[in-house]
């Protein structure tokens, strides 16, 4: 069990309550289940890393329990009752130093301290769909939901939100645009927050500016956007909707860069790798798919027999793909040497250099082509 969990690089929570670990290098999937009797109220709603070293996975279920799974030992080490099903499902789970933050659909955000049963409670409004933690400032969380605008809370001063978003101006029919925040992402190295809505909008908010309305609003598709993730490279965001369409949007202009194909069902969980250009998606069609963000191709596809709710990518992917990266590095070096040869051909200005380089390459290929044709004719 421990060996199996140590090699897993992707963790998924399913509707049947089973925590699944997938090793993409060995192409194997493992089920980690606490007891032989599974039940539907153990359905996994949220998952989060328990610690920065990614050795513990916190799994929140529908019946209100949060279980801790140790990836080194391969077993569930602790269970904690964090609320009851009457308040709704978990919509967010986060960990700050020595305390755990949970948020449920009814709007009750609780901070559970290790060891003590005291909790600090904040009411964030009804109908919450998502609660997300700022990875750089761990005491800040953002919440949003259906008719519940984006609010950023500082847990040290939990009485009032630091930032409440204002709704967009009335549309062209002078009607109020409905609010339905489905997923939230904090853009690293800045104060900005990206949200995706159930009305197929992607909004970027900047709390550092006095403008409470979105700084950027983009539309994608005709179906509710259900999941969002920010890749390691800045300036883009990956969103998924309930029809299984995954798209990469550019955050500077708000345009669609490209779509990732393959999904047949609604996207429930989406996560980008912290350093590599990879994105893992899981959904109702019972597949885990890993796409590459550079060429938008499908890298891995794994069939896991239950509908999947959440996905967590570990940075351990780096070890597996090191071998591939070294091969790529050699090729890149060879190409760079060739480029240097062409770059040294003419030294006038940068633009003409490129044009000259291109021309030279073109002429060379032309010559080669002609030579080949001559040889063929001789034969």
């Amino acid at each position, binding site marked *: 069990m421990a060996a199996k969990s140590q090699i897993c690089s992707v963790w998924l929570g399913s509707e049947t309550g089973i925590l699944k670990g997938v090793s993409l290098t060995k192409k194997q999937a493992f*089920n980690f289940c606490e007891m032989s009797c*599974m039940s539907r109220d153990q359905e996994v709603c949220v998952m989060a890393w328990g610690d920065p070293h990614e050795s513990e996975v916190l799994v929140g279920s529908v019946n209100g329990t949060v279980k801790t799974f140790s990836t080194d030992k391969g077993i569930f080490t602790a269970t904690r009752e964090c609320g009851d099903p009457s308040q709704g499902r978990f919509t967010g789970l986060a960990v700050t130093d020595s305390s755990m933050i949970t948020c449920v659909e009814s709007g009750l955000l609780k901070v559970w301290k290790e060891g003590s049963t005291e909790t600090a409670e904040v009411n964030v409004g009804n109908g919450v769909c998502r609660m997300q933690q700022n990875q750089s400032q761990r005491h800040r969380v953002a919440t949003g939901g259906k008719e519940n605008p984006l609010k950023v809370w500082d847990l040290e001063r939990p009485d009032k939100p630091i930032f409440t978003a204002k709704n967009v101006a009335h549309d062209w029919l002078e009607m109020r645009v409905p609010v339905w925040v489905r997923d939230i992402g904090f853009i690293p190295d800045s104060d900005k927050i990206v949200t995706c809505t159930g009305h197929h909008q992607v909004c970027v908010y900047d709390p550092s500016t006095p403008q409470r309305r979105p700084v950027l609003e983009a539309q994608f598709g005709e179906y509710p956007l259900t999941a969002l993730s920010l890749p390691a490279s800045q300036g883009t965001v990956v969103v998924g909707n*309930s*029809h299984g369409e995954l798209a990469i949007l550019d955050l500077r202009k708000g345009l669609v860069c490209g779509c990732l194909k*393959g999904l047949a*069902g609604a996207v429930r969980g989406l996560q980008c790798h912290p350093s590599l250009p990879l994105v893992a998606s899981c959904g*109702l069609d019972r597949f885990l798919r890993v796409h590459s963000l550079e060429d938008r191709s499908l890298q891995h596809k794994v069939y896991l*027999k*239950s509908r999947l709710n959440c996905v967590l990518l570990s940075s351990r992917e780096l070890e597996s793909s090191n071998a591939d990266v070294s091969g790529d590095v050699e090729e890149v070096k060879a190409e760079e040497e060739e480029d240097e040869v062409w770059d040294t051909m003419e030294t006038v200005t940068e633009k003409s250099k490129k044009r000259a380089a291109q021309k030279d390459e073109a002429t060379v290929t032309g010559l080669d082509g002609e030579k080949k044709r001559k040889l063929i004719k001789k034969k």
Partner: protein
Amino acid sequence: MDSNEATTSESVSKKKGKTKKVKRKVKHDEAPVQEMEQAEGEETEKKSESGPCFPPTFSVSEIKNKQRRHSMFLKLKEEKRKAPPKEVPKTIENQRIYDETTVNPEDEEVAFDEGTDEFSAYFNRLTNPKVLITTSDRPRGRTVRFCEQLATVIPHAHVYYRRGLALKRVIPQCVSRGFTYLMVINEDRKVPNGLVLCHLPDGPTAHFKVSNVRLRKEMKRRGKDPTEHVPEVILNNFTTRLGHSIGRMFAALFPHDPQFVGRQVATFHNQRDFIFFRFHRYIFKNEKKVGIQELGPRFTLKLRSLQKGTFDSKFGEYEWVHKRHEMDSSRRKFHL
């Protein structure tokens, strides 16, 4: 040189299937005659190139010894007279790309998933099916007759006129009146072309494309109208996980215990992602012979989408959506 090559190629083309046997016979020829019997026994074994290598383009005419050549020729003729093994033709179903979601009957996780899904209430015999059949607004004659005939085929089915009502408002009313299924037949240009099948308490909604509808009047050599007996249900070829879900949807339309007295059977046959519905009456003439009469309407369905939850095409989450350009790129890949 060239002429020689031409002849050998011709001989090879004539004896395409015989090159194997020709090779072996060549080996036997080279070996002493006493080993012929052993060698014949070895013919059934797999090829093992232990003898001297002969070019594959060997023909009987190259053996110089007349008697040996004659015996070889007679042997070849006898081989030809024996019927060649019948080749299995390649069909699209044979060449189907293996679907990794094919359900293994012993799989515990899938069994648990199916045992606790939205149909578990029906399969645990806690509810009895009750179907509401309606159409899109203002249906024309063919669709109306189709709905009436469907209502005779499916027990406990009630046909209601749509009156332009919104489905999202119809569904809570159906739930309160104890219906388990809502069936909406969509009509286009006086012909039914779509079917929305919604399992009621909170169950999945399947959207099908309907084609090739044949009403009772148009069926040749049909039997008398179906009786009120509960029919048996046959579900053929639903192998993948998606196929299982759809198969269970169809199974849950009919009450549990079929009345074998009625000798009626409803068949949902899945082939190449098309589901063929037929309704027959059967009679056993003796233990081995059955006579069947087709009654009832006949139609073909093709799944367009399966949505989790009751009908909500705008905000619902889809479990499977048919995407033509991604899924129909291969002729041998099927999803049900």
